[in-house]
């Protein structure tokens, strides 16, 4: 598929040139050793919602950061309303009418809604340094009324729901760009972390606000991009590889463009799913309870089995994962690994008994971002004789590190899990999210693991990397590792699991069989989840 849409489409899509609100030409941005953006052309017309998709590391975030003035491009030009501009910093960007709503909303929790709304403009609202709160409240309410957003501005933002914070961030984007009548608002993965209701509300708002603003919408969820966008750009390896009207787009087409090849049949490699009848029990959970999170949960997972766990937010599934991995202490019940009861409440005790944990928050819980890949990989295995068979121990003296063997271990992970990295000495922050996640998986496999507890192991990583993670999990199952697979994405959960435990309000209400060829449907599972 060619990168341009053909001329007829282009005319239809663009309409008269005067409506082009914002355009960038031949943008190039390089970091040490990496070309993040190469010859990118991109435009946004008045009242338009443009989708921006691509795998991790494709350059989406870099593009948003260039547009919002956080980075400066090395080459290329930016035009606002047909006039060339240079954007030197975020404040400059908002002067040109461009504002960004970050994934982690840029609001200050211990201030009230109206204070957050006008944070940058406090000097304009003060007399001799004294803030005119009444005026802030009044004008804040006016802004919300114009935008049709319903929020209690008097409340401290700490007491806002996730979805309310996002609405506030969007309103804030308007107040930041108050001197332009039609701002450009960049939404960086706005739906990540939103529940269904919040998402619908967000999409309604975006639709209503087309008269007031233009949007760039970035998301990993292709169905959402298709639902809300007028046009879609696909980035791969820093280049725009596809650019199409939403009418011409489909999830398949977008996925192909993002990955650069067709997604192979059997994404979840269901045919590889192992039967586990007669296999030994690897982990046995009985009557496990944690006050306020879950009650009386019991199940067994066999060697080589993938046991899926699903449930809505607040069903207790993540808390269950944290107890199984030893992070949190339960209030009752017991856990046995390989037939032996393990006293819960300590990760290292669990690790010593062969339980590995892939936490939900990759960046804050799984990786040392400024340490080299090598250091991350060996972290759980230093000073232990429980190193997995196929990799050599880290030295005969447990408290001394044998750097050669450590290198070998890191190289092994890079080879086996196909991690894309400049070298094993590269700090993890230089790797894309998917490759970081492979390192988190890999480091857990360097010790003898019989059970792997994973919480949303593919969260925020792209299609290609997901497929590789699935391949790795199938391989682990083949090696006899039992897996507790907590997931929010139902197709993935259904595709990967041998059995599925459904959590509802802290109870495991059902355990469904999911053999190849007879998998439960999404709707069957959703029915039990709610």
């Amino acid at each position, binding site marked *: 598929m060619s990168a341009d849409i053909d001329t007829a489409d282009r005319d239809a899509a663009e309409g008269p040139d005067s409506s082009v609100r914002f355009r960038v030409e031949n943008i190039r941005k390089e970091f040490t050793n990496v070309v993040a953006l190469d010859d990118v052309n991109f435009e946004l017309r008045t009242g338009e919602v443009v989708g921006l998709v691509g795998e991790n590391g494709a350059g989406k975030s870099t593009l948003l950061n260039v547009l919002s003035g956080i980075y400066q491009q090395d080459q290329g030009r930016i035009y606002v309303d047909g006039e060339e501009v240079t954007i030197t910093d975020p404040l400059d960007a908002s002067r040109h009418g461009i504002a960004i709503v970050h994934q982690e909303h840029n609001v200050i929790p211990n201030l009230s809604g109206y204070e957050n709304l006008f944070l940058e403009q406090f000097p304009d609202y003060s007399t001799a340094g004294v803030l005119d709160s009444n005026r802030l409240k009044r004008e804040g309410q006016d802004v919300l009324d114009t935008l049709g957003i319903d929020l209690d501005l008097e409340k401290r933002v700490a007491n806002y729901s996730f979805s309310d914070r996002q609405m506030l961030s969007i309103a804030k984007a308007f107040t930041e760009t108050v001197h332009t009548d039609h701002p450009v608002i960049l939404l960086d993965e706005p739906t990540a972390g939103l529940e269904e209701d919040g998402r619908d509300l967000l999409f309604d708002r975006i639709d209503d606000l087309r008269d007031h603003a233009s949007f760039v919408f970035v998301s990993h969820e292709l169905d959402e991009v298709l639902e809300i966008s007028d046009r879609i750009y696909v980035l791969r390896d820093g280049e725009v590889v596809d650019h199409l009207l939403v009418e011409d787009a489909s999830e398949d087409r977008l996925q192909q463009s993002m990955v650069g090849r067709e997604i192979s049949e059997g994404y979840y490699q269901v045919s590889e799913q192992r039967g586990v009848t007669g296999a030994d029990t690897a982990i046995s959970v009985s009557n496990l309870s944690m006050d306020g999170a879950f009650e009386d949960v019991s199940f067994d997972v066999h060697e080589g089995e993938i046991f899926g766990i699903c449930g809505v937010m607040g069903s207790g599934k993540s808390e269950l994962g944290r107890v199984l991995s030893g992070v949190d202490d339960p209030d009752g019940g017991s856990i046995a690994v390989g037939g032996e009861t393990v006293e819960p409440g300590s990760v290292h005790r*669990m690790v010593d008994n062969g339980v590995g944990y892939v936490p939900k928050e990759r960046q804050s819980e799984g990786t040392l971002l400024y340490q080299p890949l090598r250091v991350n990989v*060996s*972290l759980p295995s230093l000073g232990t004789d429980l190193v997995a068979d196929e990799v050599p121990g880290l030295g005969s003296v*447990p*408290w001394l590190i044998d750097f050669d063997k450590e290198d070998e271990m890191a190289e092994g992970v890079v080879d086996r899990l196909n991690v894309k990295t400049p070298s094993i000495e590269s700090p993890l922050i230089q790797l894309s999210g998917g490759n970081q996640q492979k390192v988190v998986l890999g480091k857990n496999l360097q*010790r003898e693991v019989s059970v792997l507890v994973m919480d949303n192991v593919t969260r925020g990583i792209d299609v290609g990397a997901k497929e590789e993670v699935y391949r790795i999990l199938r391989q682990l199952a083949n090696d006899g590792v039992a897996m507790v697979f907590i997931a929010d994405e139902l197709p993935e959960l259904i595709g990967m699991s041998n059995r599925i435990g459904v959590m509802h309000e802290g109870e495991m209400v059902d355990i469904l069989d999911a053999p190849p060829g007879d998998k439960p449907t999404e709707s069957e599972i959703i029915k039990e989840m709610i």
Partner: protein
Amino acid sequence: MAGSTSGNAVVDWIGQYRENRSATDILIDLGPFLMLLILMAIFTATSDVFLTYDNLVGNVMMNSMILLFVALAGTFPILQQSIDLSVASIVSLSGVLTAMLINDFNLGILALVLGILAGTGVGLLNGVVFAKAKIPSFLVTLGSLSVFSGSALLLTGGYSVPFNAPAIRQIAIGQTIPNVPNLVVWGLVFYVLVSLLAWKTTFGRYTYALGENERVADFSGVKVDRYKIGAFVVSGTLCGLAGVLLTARITSATPGMGQGLLLQSIAAIVMGGTALTGGVGGPHRTILGVLVIGVLTNGMNLLGIQSFVQEIILGFVVIFAVALSMDRDKIDVVK
């Protein structure tokens, strides 16, 4: 043949180093070196005596060694994003204990060993209260600072404890290697050992990991409490050693002998390139900060600068050197 292979290894190492470090990183790595070279150039130009062996070893090095021990000690908690504020008071406490054991109990060399162990013991105490009771290290050691220096005052009644033991004095100022005072040898030996501890051992590695992100280390199965306590034990032991060697050098101990070492050691650690936010730097770099302070003090003495003015200049140099050696890009908010 062997020579060329190791030559290649060095070239490889430099190549790999440059691949993974940006220009700012490299400037920051070199910052304390530059600072030291600039100071040495200034004093070489302005003083005839500065660049002589006797001055560099007999004065600069000799007078920096106690600070070196204390700064090496403080590096470990700081690498873990904690801090040990009690370092100077441990120096005083183990110093007066040693002097009293020599003077009142005639224990001789054994007194030195006990003095060091006293440092280990109070370090362990700091660490256990910090890690097990989960009280921030800043507050634990702020309190223990007062406890230790109060104890030193109580033990001595506020007076100094001189003793007469030439053999013990030789441990510090004798010259087993001709023209090199033993104290300098002690300092350099421990500098190498402590650098290896940080670089080559599991304890050292986990120290860096804890400093960058304790939760990640915990979730990976690291026994974090053990290594947090370990950092304070190392710190206490090295401070005990500093107190003992200082006592041996001056054949006397006073309850205030550690005064000034806390702030100087923190300045040296940060100047060397170990961030107060943890995870980067290390004891191998701390020596640079120590030498900057040592060279500066010595140079100013040679130039006859009044000691009150010296203090002001030292303050400016510390701020400037920290500005050179700090990577502000990796820190979200500076407080």
